[in-house]
């Protein structure tokens, strides 16, 4: 039995925990820090004990080493906290800044208040709990490497192929939904003060599990029945959620629309576009400028009363498509890195134009009071309405994309992605095919932009920074490049989850980044990859006939 890996892993993990600890993370995070540390310990155990190619660790070995990692971290943190607590109780001051934060900080870990720490209250009950939690996390993390090995994967496959596993996967989303519903029963207080966060988490879980269930369902009746059930539940969700939850879900939906568009450009056609936010911004500003009462257009044309959302939307899409085409012309012959740099520049240029063409765009002051969408006299300008529109938009773009993917055009995008020169030799018109990829992506982003503008009411150039492009790119990669269901998962993970982690405050970015890195190491093909990409990344032989459904 090799304990070396456990000890090494324990020390590495503890180094990281200590670092976060010294950063003052526990203080800012208050009570949420213990679960986060626990999850980190588990994840690190999982990552650090992962077998190198060829040699697989036995379950016993993995569990013992995992446990060791947990114990080292538990003991380490207890010792450090103990030292801190003693220092404070005895008024030993190392440094002024530390003296300010340490008592609260230590208290947060041990479950005490600042005064209790200063009074020398025992940290042991709280710290014992942490030590036990860490040990369990390490054990679970270590043991679960079995799911990430080749054998483990095969075993999982055989479980999910069994009818028990199969039906569990199909039922799971309904369980999450039921749990979510149970939150709404008066008197049941599962979530405590943060019930809306828990509810949101359950919706995320429901949607994610539903996507996996649809993937697992047998084609035909089973799939159709499930789709109908899930669709009904999905449509019911906005009725059951509160304002906060709807707002978060609305953002997730808008990013799904953008993700689906960028996926056409990057996932299908293989054209790396880092300036995708430009089309989002153009869509938003086109609608904003044509509809907001104080916008340049409405002010200079007194006779023009502005367009409604439903007129503005197609105009925004059209303008987006035109700019998309204009962008492609100079980059037609560019590939890879060069294309990425040029598009990145394009994204920034658009933002700078929005910022600096003050007379027309309002500059940093933005465009204010953009009207909301009205459907049959009903105002959709609230989180619930926007969420409904977001779901509908996502459905439409997903449908269009699937149709395109399975068409000749979809095939030509794949050829283009694989080898431009040979694609041409197959009789593919590169210019047309690239134009169509960019135009499709731009159209979806511009549509999302118009929806976003009426959601935000006021838009500013800073809403359209490079970060948005990066977010969208990350979410399609995390979900699994080329996979439409993956985009929904990616959007939940990247746009939705940070809202849940909000209680961890600024450090959520750190925690979140760590999660992403771990995920990409453990599952490089993305959360719910398209069949094609899975195959590509694992380079495995396909034994089943490939249908066009990715």
């Amino acid at each position, binding site marked *: 039995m090799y304990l070396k890996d456990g000890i090494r892993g324990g020390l590495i993990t503890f180094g990281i925990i200590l670092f976060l600890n010294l950063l003052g993370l526990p203080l800012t995070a208050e009570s949420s820090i213990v679960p986060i540390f626990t999850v980190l310990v588990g994840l690190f155990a999982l990552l650090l004990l992962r077998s190198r190619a060829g040699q697989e660790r036995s379950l016993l070995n993995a569990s013992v080493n995992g446990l060791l990692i947990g114990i080292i971290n538990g003991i380490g943190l207890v010792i450090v906290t103990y030292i801190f607590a003693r220092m404070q109780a005895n008024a030993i001051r190392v440094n002024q800044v530390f003296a300010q934060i340490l008592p609260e900080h230590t208290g947060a870990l041990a479950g005490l208040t600042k005064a209790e720490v200063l009074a020398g209250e025992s940290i042991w009950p709280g710290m014992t709990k942490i030590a036990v939690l860490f040990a369990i996390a390490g054990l679970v993390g270590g043991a679960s490497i079995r799911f990430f090995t080749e054998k483990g994967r095969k075993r999982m496959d055989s479980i999910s192929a069994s009818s028990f596993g199969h039906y569990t996967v199909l039922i799971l989303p309904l369980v999450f939904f039921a749990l979510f519903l149970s939150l709404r029963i008066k008197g049941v207080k599962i979530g405590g003060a943060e019930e809306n966060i828990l509810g949101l988490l359950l919706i995320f879980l429901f949607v994610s599990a539903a996507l996996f269930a649809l993937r697992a369902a047998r084609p035909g009746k089973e799939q159709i029945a499930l789709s109908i059930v899930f669709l009904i539940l999905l449509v019911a969700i906005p009725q059951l959620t509160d304002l906060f939850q709807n707002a978060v879900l609305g953002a997730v939906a808008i990013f799904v629309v953008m993700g689906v568009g960028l996926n056409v450009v990057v996932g299908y056609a293989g054209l790396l576009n880092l300036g995708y936010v430009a089309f989002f911004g153009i869509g938003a500003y086109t609608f904003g400028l044509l509809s907001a009462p104080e916008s340049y257009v409405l002010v200079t044309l007194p006779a023009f009363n502005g367009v409604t959302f439903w007129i503005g939307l197609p105009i925004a899409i059209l303008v987006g498509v035109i700019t998309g085409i204009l962008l492609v012309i100079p980059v037609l012959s560019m590939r890879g890195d060069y294309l990425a740099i040029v598009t990145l520049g394009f994204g920034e240029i658009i933002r700078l134009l929005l910022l600096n063409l003050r007379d027309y765009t309002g500059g940093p002051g933005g465009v204010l009071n953009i009207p909301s969408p009205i459907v049959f006299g009903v105002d959709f300008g609230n989180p619930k309405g926007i969420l409904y529109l977001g779901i509908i938009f996502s459905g439409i773009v997903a449908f269009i994309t699937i149709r395109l993917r399975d068409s*000749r055009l979809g*095939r*030509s995008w*794949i*050829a283009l992605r*694989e*080898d431009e*020169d*040979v694609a*041409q*030799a*197959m*009789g*593919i*018109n*590169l210019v047309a095919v690239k134009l169509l990829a960019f135009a499709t992506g731009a159209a979806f982003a511009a549509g999302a932009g118009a929806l976003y503008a009426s959601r935000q009411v006021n838009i500013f150039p800073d809403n359209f920074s490079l970060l948005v492009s990066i977010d969208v790119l990350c979410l399609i990669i995390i979900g699994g490049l080329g996979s439409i269901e993956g985009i929904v998962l990616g959007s939940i993970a990247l746009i939705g989850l940070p809202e849940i982690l909000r209680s961890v405050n600024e450090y959520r970015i750190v925690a979140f980044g760590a999660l992403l890195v771990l995920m990409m190491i453990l599952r490089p093909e993305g959360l719910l990859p398209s069949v*094609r990409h899975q*195959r*590509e990344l694992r*380079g*495995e*032989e*396909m*034994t*089943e*006939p*490939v249908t066009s459904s990715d």
Partner: protein
Amino acid sequence: MALLEVRDVHSYYGNIHALKGLSITVEEGEIVTLIGANGAGKTTTLRTICGVIKPRQGSVSLEGENLEPFKIHEIVYKGVALVPEGRRIFSRLTVYENLDMGAYHRIDNDGIAEDFDRVFVLFPRLKERRNQVAGTLSGGEQQMLATARALMAHPRLMLLDEPSMGLAPVLVESIFETIQEINREGTTILLVEQNAHMALQVAHRGYVLQTGEIVLDGTAEALRNNPMVQKSYLGIE
């Protein structure tokens, strides 16, 4: 009228004068080979025919029609298919998907189905491996796939760029047999080769290319017996 006529073509890469007044003709139904050493301009000739490079001077015509104004993909529509140097299969797609790509520009579904059958008869190996990812095929199988993919376009003229490259002698022989078989079924072939020995056995006629110029041409038999060819390309002293 010749199926393919390349007349006095001058092609450049920037300032590099790669083809210096090259002329070749290929008649319907023939196998014509173009042999030459590394860097002679063989691949450049094929690129010029496909429209990847537009010649600065001279013309390429297919059945008398000048190809100058046409783009690469339009030349494919006209019935010219290329098996590129180094195979260039879509390595992340399956064998089936690769073949399907070859038929990209066609809309006659019955014809496509027929051609699938035809290539699977010619290359039974590909049929066995139709759902395998192409990148995991052996070198010989990849060459078969590249050839089959071009056949899926149902070309009138097939351009093969060094199909024997990197293959074991047995495989080379079988590839060349297949090329003859394809030709018997009615496809005209322009075969670029360094393996002059094999190429001159299957071809009807041949051209010898040296630094962008044709230095010799004639029937395969005449070339085989030519002392210069024997010395430089067949290794016979």
